[in-house]
């Protein structure tokens, strides 16, 4: 696939159809590639990569790219197209400045899972169907792909591209995902157990803001957490309002807008499963107000900008199953 995508990028640049290409650039190690803006065919030839570690959702960068002169081409995996569509719905991206190329995705890998297997010094990984041939500086090793698949990919919700200008490869379908299983598991715990779980997770947070910075729903001109006038910004540590409630407030800000792309958990240096908070909101919305997938249908009203006179009461949430 990398070859096809590179060729497409080069063709788009050469033909003058686009001025820049947004893609993934190889890093120092095989797994640490970064989103990058390619300006020439030569640069694409040299450093453009697409493999199991090209997990970054590039749609958010289009907010800034759309402000520049000229057209930018972007490669979007199926789940990324939901974010792209959602951003368009929110008028955050200049559509005419974007050339969106849908690309297939077979699931991305989680480097932490590989590390947990004791695999170090990865040179390359070759995907052979359900197996991965990992060559490291210590030799070769074969692992099952499903064992090292990122959680969001193991529970992939859709292989369908909701929006693109052209598509490479074949179109997939919306999948029947088991992504809510873990939420259910948490819901079945006692209140004390859940508190212990989240206290353990959230106490590790170092407030590096990586989750916010990577989130395609977090594109505010100025984030409320950076705005002294918002009443919730503060840089003082520990006991301040913002510190304690950062993740709840952030999740609430993206309710109905979060497409469940899973970037927040991918970039968290502390390995906090932040996506579970957002996913809980999604699960609740589906259960309370009918299935809703952000980014899927640009004409649909988001759950929090909609209502029904028959909506359940807040107290009813807890009556179920009691």
């Amino acid at each position, binding site marked *: 696939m990398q070859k096809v995508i590179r060729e497409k990028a080069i063709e788009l640049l050469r033909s003058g159809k686009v001025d820049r290409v947004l893609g993934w650039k190889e890093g120092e190690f095989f797994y640490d590639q970064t989103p990058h803006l390619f300006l020439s065919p030569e640069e694409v030839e040299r450093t453009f990569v697409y493999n199991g570690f090209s997990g970054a959702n590039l749609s958010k960068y289009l907010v800034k790219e759309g402000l520049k002169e000229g057209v930018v081409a972007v490669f979007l995996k199926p789940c990324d197209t939901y974010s792209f569509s959602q951003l368009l719905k929110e*008028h*955050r991206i200049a559509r005419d400045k974007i050339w969106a190329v849908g690309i297939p995705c077979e699931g991305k890998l989680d480097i932490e899972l590989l590390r947990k297997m004791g695999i170090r010094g990865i040179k390359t990984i070759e995907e052979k169907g359900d197996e991965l041939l990992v060559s490291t500086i210590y030799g070769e090793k074969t692992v099952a792909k499903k064992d090292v698949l990122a959680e969001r990919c193991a529970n992939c919700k859709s292989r369908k591209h909701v929006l693109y200008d052209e598509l490479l490869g074949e179109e997939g379908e919306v999948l029947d995902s088991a992504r809510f299983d873990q939420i259910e598991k948490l819901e079945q715990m006692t209140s004390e157990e859940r508190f212990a779980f989240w206290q353990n997770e959230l106490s590790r947070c170092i407030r590096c803001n990586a989750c916010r910075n990577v989130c395609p729903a977090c*594109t505010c001109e100025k984030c409320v957490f950076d705005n002294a006038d918002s009443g919730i910004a503060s840089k003082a540590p520990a006991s301040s309002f913002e510190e304690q409630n950062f993740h709840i407030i952030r999740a609430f800000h993206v309710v109905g*807008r979060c497409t469940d792309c899973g970037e927040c958990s991918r970039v968290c240096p502390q390995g906090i499963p932040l996506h579970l908070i957002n996913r809980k909101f999604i699960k609740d919305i589906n259960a309370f107000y009918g299935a809703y997938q952000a980014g899927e249908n640009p004409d649909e009203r988001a759950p929090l900008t909609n209502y029904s006179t028959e909506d359940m009461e807040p107290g009813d949430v807890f009556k179920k199953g009691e």
Partner: protein
Amino acid sequence: MQRIGVFVCWCGSNIAATVDVKAVAEALGKEPGVVYFEDYQYMCSEEGQNKIKNAIRDYKLTGAVICSCSPRMHENTFRKAAAAAGINSFMVEIANIREQCSWIHKDKVSATEKAIILGRAAIAKVHLNAPLTAGESPVVKRALVIGGGIAGIQTALDIADAGFEVDIVEKKPTIGGKMSQIDKTFPTLDCAACILTPKMVDVAQNEKIRIFSYSEVDAVKGFVGNFKVSIRRKARFVDEVKCTGCGLCTEKCPQKKVPNEFNLGLDQRRAIYIPFAQAVPKVATIDADYCTMLKTGKCGVCSKVCAAGAIDYKQKDTFVEEEYGAIVVATGFNPIELKKYDEFAYSQSPDVITSLEFERITNAAGPTGGTLLRPSDGTHPKKIVFVQCVGSREDGGGCGKTYCSKICCMYTAKHAMLTREKYPDTEVYVFYIDVRTPGKSFDEFYRRAVEEYGVHYVKGMVGKVSPENGKLMVRASDLIEGKQLNIDADLVVLAAAIEPDQSARPLATMLTASMDTNDFFTEAHPKLRPVESPTAGIFLSGCCQGPKDIPETVAQASACAAKVIGLLAKDKLTCNACVAHSSEMLCNGCSTCEKVCPYGAISYEEKEFRMPDRTTRVRRVASVNPAVCQGCGACTVACPSGAMDLHGFSNRQIMAEVDAICK
């Protein structure tokens, strides 16, 4: 830093008996920013108000906190006092220490403690208060009435009578609406045309009223007092000014096979037509779907016979742009489509008709000249079955409506009574679920139908109507007798439910006026503001708001006119001061706020901004129209970026109150 004065009221013993007012005043006097404090027996009295005024002047106060009764009681009193002393009236906050403290607590210690906390919260809020001024906007002294039925006519006449200009937009070639199709009116049985047509003439002759017939509202911009409306005048291919309404063309037109909608398709008209004799304006209209000249270019008879030279085959739709201060929706109703009611054989037999069709058949100007004849063979029906509640009061999920259409009981009684009066040899059955006759002289009317005219009222629903050998076999149940009935009727009349006109929904979108699930317009308050839409400047007249009979429609139409006149009589509108406002620098332009605004007060504009790096950037930003915003604050919470805030109840003010209470 504000300079705040605290004024604690005893309210006689109402507060002072349970709250240690002196302790409250002293405690609050120690709060940062408080430069003056005082307690007094009756702060709302003239003497009390003078104390506030004097303190504002003497101590150069910038804000005041009054610890007293509920703000719902005296907030305005104290605001006026503050304004009289020279500070902005919105620099006053009330701590409610009577209704929400002294009156509900018995223990003086805890009540005093609570009063201090409530006072602190008010002080914390005043620290963040800013002077507010209510905006003003001018009022265009002209009203638009959408729909020219009896509701629109009555509203327009009343508004014009008060001296204001009114335009009526009617989508049909003539005004008059449904009432012009009705024969007699209950409960007085006077003829509809006799009471309606003089009103139509009044409209035509009124200098203040313009009629845009055969026209539709195309676009609406603006807000209360300042609407800009684009009206599409559909091409009627006849010059309205030149046409004298002589009707010669409608007699000579060779295309005779056009279903006549005025008679609900019971007879035919020509391709060029005047809907009925008393039409206003009395101007011919060419039906482009049937005119041979417009379709093939070969004919031109009407043009040849028209002495006035009014025919213009090249006419195109034109647009009129006009400004209005108020818009009245009077789009009316229609009987529902009965095609889905197979059990009543409406589609299968021409002798199964709707009540409105029955009106036309009994109308002297109708297809039968007023003689009751069966549509199928033109014979006198000897046995007629009326079925009420067809499509009304149905359970959800059916093809009908859940609501009661309100008018059917009365007009069915009218039809039954008139039939028996004119044709005493005709047997008349009425099947009903309930007979509902609340209204002046309504029940008496119904009882006359039963008692004097011998109409057979049967409680029960008709299960099936099947055409057999020229008869209509009606199978029904009599719930009171508990038996099945089989009636070989000659004519079956269905009291079809009524629903809002199809044009109402797109119009509501244009006006940002809200509707209920049945597409009836919602009123600003179901009891106290029944003729206004929640969207300021939009008023509701007639059945677009809910099913109504004629007297009720006219009453509501006049009420609506009174509200419009009240608005147009003002030169300027004073807006609510506590309105939402968006920070342009923070706004993402995401449109979320717009979607939750019940008033359509938020719009977006592309604006050029100079960025910190000295480049310019065009950004989409929200802007709130203070003339329309009512200050609910829904947008402030919907806004993800925190750009939207509310004057008088800002995020920081409310958080300051929270902090003060939770300290």
